[in-house]
Each structure stands twice: as C-alpha cells, then as structure tokens.
C-alpha cells in the first residue's frame, strides 16, 4: 500500500518537474491557438466584431473574452468551426436568421466620393472620383462597411437570393425519429 502510494507520488512529482521545465524552456512565443483561430476567420479585417481585425478577434477568442458567434460575415459555418476548435457550445439560434447579404449602389444617389471604395476590404467596389461606383457582387462579402460610410445613403444591403443551385431541404420535423 505504502509502496504503491509512494511510487505513484514519486512518479507524479518527477513528471510534473519535467513538464514544468519543458513549459519554461520550450515555450512558444506566439499562441498557436491564436494562429489557428485566425486561420478559421474570414480574414477580411472588416471589423464588424468590434475588434480592429481578424488577428485581434482571434486573440480575444483564444483568451476566452469573445463569443464564438462574433463573426457576422462568417456566419454559421465560421461559428461552428470556432466552437468545434474551442470545444465550447455555441448558441447558433441567432445565426440561423442572418442571411448572406451584398451591397448594391443606387446609381441615382451616388456622388462618386470614393469613400466606400477606400473602405472596402475586398476591393469589391469599382469607382473613380465623380464617377458612379458599382459593386462587383461576386467579390462582396456583405460586411456593410460601405453601407455605414456612404454620405448619401446610396448603398443598400440586399439579401443574396436563394437559387435553384443552393436551395436545400429542411431537416425533417422535430417530431420524427424519437
């Protein structure tokens, strides 16, 4: 009995020392979790989460200060990926509602001030001074930064319509398969 307790205690102490030494001398400068989380984020630096960019958001996520649902343009898939990586349960009920959007320039209101063009993180807005701007829809990821900055409210955010190509069946009723 005593031998068993003694040997386990000795083993624990020895391994603990090894781990302690390893933690001090083999420490990694950058938090690897942060890098991994940053890779999961869209990387568009749109700032909708309230942090300056995706790197800062990843750091906050790694520290556990931000919810996994922070990324609006990333939507459900990013939230799920983050919650999986961090092992936390995400409340995705709000995210179900948010549908992908894209920006649209109402040409009669655009004054060609270039503000949105400079703001766009994916270079999705084409324009020149005093010329009507337009949004390349395939490049727009719906961060709405241009929508907020436009002085004449010429930009409106539209819902990306569901097409035959991306329509899908709903989950069979909750009553099924009990």
């Amino acid at each position, binding site marked *: 009995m005593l031998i068993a307790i003694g040997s386990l205690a000795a083993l624990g102490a020895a391994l603990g020392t090894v781990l302690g030494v390893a933690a001090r001398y083999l420490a990694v400068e950058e938090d690897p979790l942060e890098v991994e989380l940053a890779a999961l984020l869209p990387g*568009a630096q749109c700032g909708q989460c309230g942090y300056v960019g995706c790197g800062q958001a990843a750091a906050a996520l790694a520290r556990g200060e931000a919810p996994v649902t922070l990324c609006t343009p990333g939507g459900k898939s990013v939230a799920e990926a983050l919650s999986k990586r961090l092992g936390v349960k995400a409340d995705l009920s709000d995210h179900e509602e948010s549908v992908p959007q894209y920006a649209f320039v109402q040409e009669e209101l655009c004054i060609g001030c270039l503000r949105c063009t400079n703001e766009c993180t994916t270079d999705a807005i084409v324009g020149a001074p005093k010329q009507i701007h337009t949004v390349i829809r395939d490049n727009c990821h719906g961060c709405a930064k241009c929508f907020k900055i436009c002085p004449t409210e010429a930009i409106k955010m539209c819902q990306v319509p569901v097409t035959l190509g991306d*329509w899908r069946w709903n989950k069979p009723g909750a009553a099924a398969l009990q």
Partner: protein
Amino acid sequence: MRLFPIRGGIHPKYRKELTSEQPIVALPMPARLYLPLQQHIGAPAEPVVSVGQKVRKGDLLARGQGAVSAPTHASTSGVVVEITTVTAPHPSGLPQLTIILEPDGKDEWTDLPDPIEDPFSLSGDAIRERVASSGIVGLGGATFPAAVKLNLGSQQKIETLLINGAECEPYLTCDDRLMREYAAEIVDGARIMAHALGAPGIVIAIERNKPQALEAMRAAAAGFDAIEVIDVPVQYPMGSERHLTQAITGRETPAKKLTAELGVVVHNVGTARAVHQSVRFGRPLTRRVVTVSGGAVAQGKNIEVPLGAMVSELIAFCGGLREEPRRIVNGGPMMGQPLPSLEVPVVKGTSGILALTVAEANERPTQPCIRCGGCVTICPCGLVPVEMAAFIRKDNLDAAAGIGVTDCFSCGSCSYICPSHIPLVQYFNYAKGELAARDRERRRLDRVKTLSETRVERLERQAQAKREAAAAAAAARKAASVPSENKASQ
C-alpha cells in the same frame, strides 16, 4: 452473359400495368410553351433570342455556357412572347428564368444541320459536337449533358457502353414503351454513342418484368455482334448507374468516382434515341416521352410531349383528375420529387408525372426506431441508415459524413422499408444539402480571404511606390538646390 448480384434493394409494388399497355401518343400543341434556361446539370443556358422574334422548330433559343452546360431549342415554330421568371419544376417552387414561346400551329422545322449518313466514318469529336449542339442530356432524369459523358472515352479506355433500360422505378413505363416502339432507333443511337466513346461492346440491360421490350430490343439488335441484350433481375434500384454496372461487371464503383473507372459508361435508352435523331436527322432535342400515371389520374398515358408544355396540360390530356391527389410527383415514386403545383413546365429531365392518392402516398406518423436493422440490410450502397439518421438528428453532420452520407444516392429504399416510418432518406437529403452548402460557404470565405490579402498587398505596394516617389523628389530637390551642379547641367 454472367450476371452478378447487387447488394440489398427492395421489391415495391410496381403498378406499371396502369400505363404499360398505353402506346406513346403525342400531346396536342399547347397554347404556350415554357422553356426554362436550366434544364440540365451545369451552368444555365444564355438566351440568344429576343422578345417578339419569330422562331422555327429546332432553332436555338439559348446557348450553353461553359464546359458543362446544354443549349435549349424551340420545341415548335412560333413567336418568343416573353423571357421572364416562371415557377421551376422543382420542390422549392423557386422562380427560374424561362423563355415563353407562343406556337403558330405550323410546327415547321428550321433549316437543320445536314444528316450524317455514315457516323461511323466520323471522329468521336464530330459526333460529340453534334450531340452537344443538339442539347441532349441524360433523359433518365439526371440531365447530365450527354456530350460530356461521351467524352469519357478520351480519358479512359471504355470497354462497354451500357444502355440502361432497367426502368426500376415503379409506375414509370416511358422507357418500356420507347424500347417496344422505337427499338431500332435506340440500337442505332447506342451504336453511334459506342463509336464516339471508342467502346467495343454494347450491353443493353432490361429488367425481366418487361418481356415485350426485351423481345423488341433483341430483334432490333440481332444483326450486330457487338450488342448484347440482357435481362436483369427485378430489384429496385437496379436502374442506378452504379448498381447496373455492378450487376454486369461484378465490380463496385469506388466512392466519388465514375463508372468510367471500371471501363463502363451508362446512358439511358431515351438518350440513345435522342442521339439517333440528332445524328441521323440533325434534329435537336425538342420532345420527350413522359409517363403520366397514379391513382388520381383518370387515364394514365405515355405521352410524347414538346418540351415546355405545362404539367396541367398533360393531366388534362389524360382526362383530368379522378380525385384530389395527395401528392404530385415529378419522376418515379421512389426518387421523384414533389412538385409545387401543376403549373410548371415539362423539362428534359421529366420522366414521369404521378398524381398519387392518399392511399398511394401512404403517409404515416413516425414512430420510435425498433432497431430491426431492416434499413441496414436493404441499403444498396452498404451504408448504415439508422446510424446516419441518428447523427443527423443531433446535428452531427460531420459524423454522418464520416460514415458515408454523401455516398447515399437517395434511392429511398430505407424509408420504404422502415416499419416505424422514419423519414430516413429525407434526413440524408437534408444532410447532403447542408454539407454542400457548408462547402460552398467555405469556398466563399477562402475567396474573401484571398481578396483581402491581395488588397493589403496592393496597399503596401502603393505606399512603397509613394515612399519611393517622395524619396526621388527629395533627391531631385536636393540636386536642384546645389547651384553649381544646376548650372553644369544647363
């Protein structure tokens, strides 16, 4: 020929007798035809006609875009009255861009491309080009552009062209009637396709419950040594491309691969006839045979329909509805999809329209799983439906994908067999759609990431250029401020 067994499968009530003795009849030309731009898998076609333009039967209305696409032709002569959105023949009922044609009643052909007298002297490419420009897609229901599939011979050695006349879906008899009435055309189309593929052998596989079709096809193929007409057991889903290949080769097609890996390319009998029409007469695909059946239809029929006719016209031609149907199904009852309404057009992939009564639809409340294992025994793909459904119910789609939900081809055998009426295949359809959507989303986010990285690079480049310009300007100013040098340069 030796046949090999396929795994699982079911034997539903076939109810083919409702229409199997009904010869193919032509639908009277409707007052308007609705031709959607997407009647095939791949990129939608692009309209080349304008509103008010007069067209003749067989004129190109919309051309294919990209590598996998198919053009659409005028099903009759008339005037293009509108290009607008119309409800698609799809369970979603979403609108789809559609060309609306008003027939002039003359039904006259346009100047068709020259008939090819001897297609066997031509290269495979010439035949593929003709098939592609005729807008032919897989008429079994999958609507994959036929020309793309005929190109598989250039990548792999194809040993066998397998002509699929199994028609294992209950109710449907359009392929059966086609084989009985147009056997010679199917055989000719098959020979042309085999030539384009470079396939030495042709196997025509027909389920044993169609003895007249077997006889007709055997008679038509009698003169050709390369063609073998075989009768395959009556077992749903024998008509699945992969399972039919397994039945004749004994080998299973690897997951996410094509049957071409095994040296086999499968085409439907209707596709073979369309190829015959296109190559021998230059006629593009403008009509197809549709089975209209089900207990709620007054008289089930096999109708040759000009593409674009409304489903309601077909039902009216069959004497209307005998009772209020519980379900209108596009395709067979096993793999077919519900239609949002009767006001949707017949497209290239419409093989059947079924109006099912309450008794036929057989909807029952779901009960708890009793662990009978029936779904596992009958799954023709060797999957474990009960376990996949349990994962999906708990939203663990990755686990479901891990045990092969994406290899399920939605034959519906598990839902059919389940004594507790658990909507198994419905779970898998949901999961497959959701997984595909996530995939698209991931690709979109990758694109956003690339775009924003390029922008950061661009901004850096611009800043660098500015700094360099400023440095150059400063250097120039410095040089200008030294008068001796300035004079020297002048």
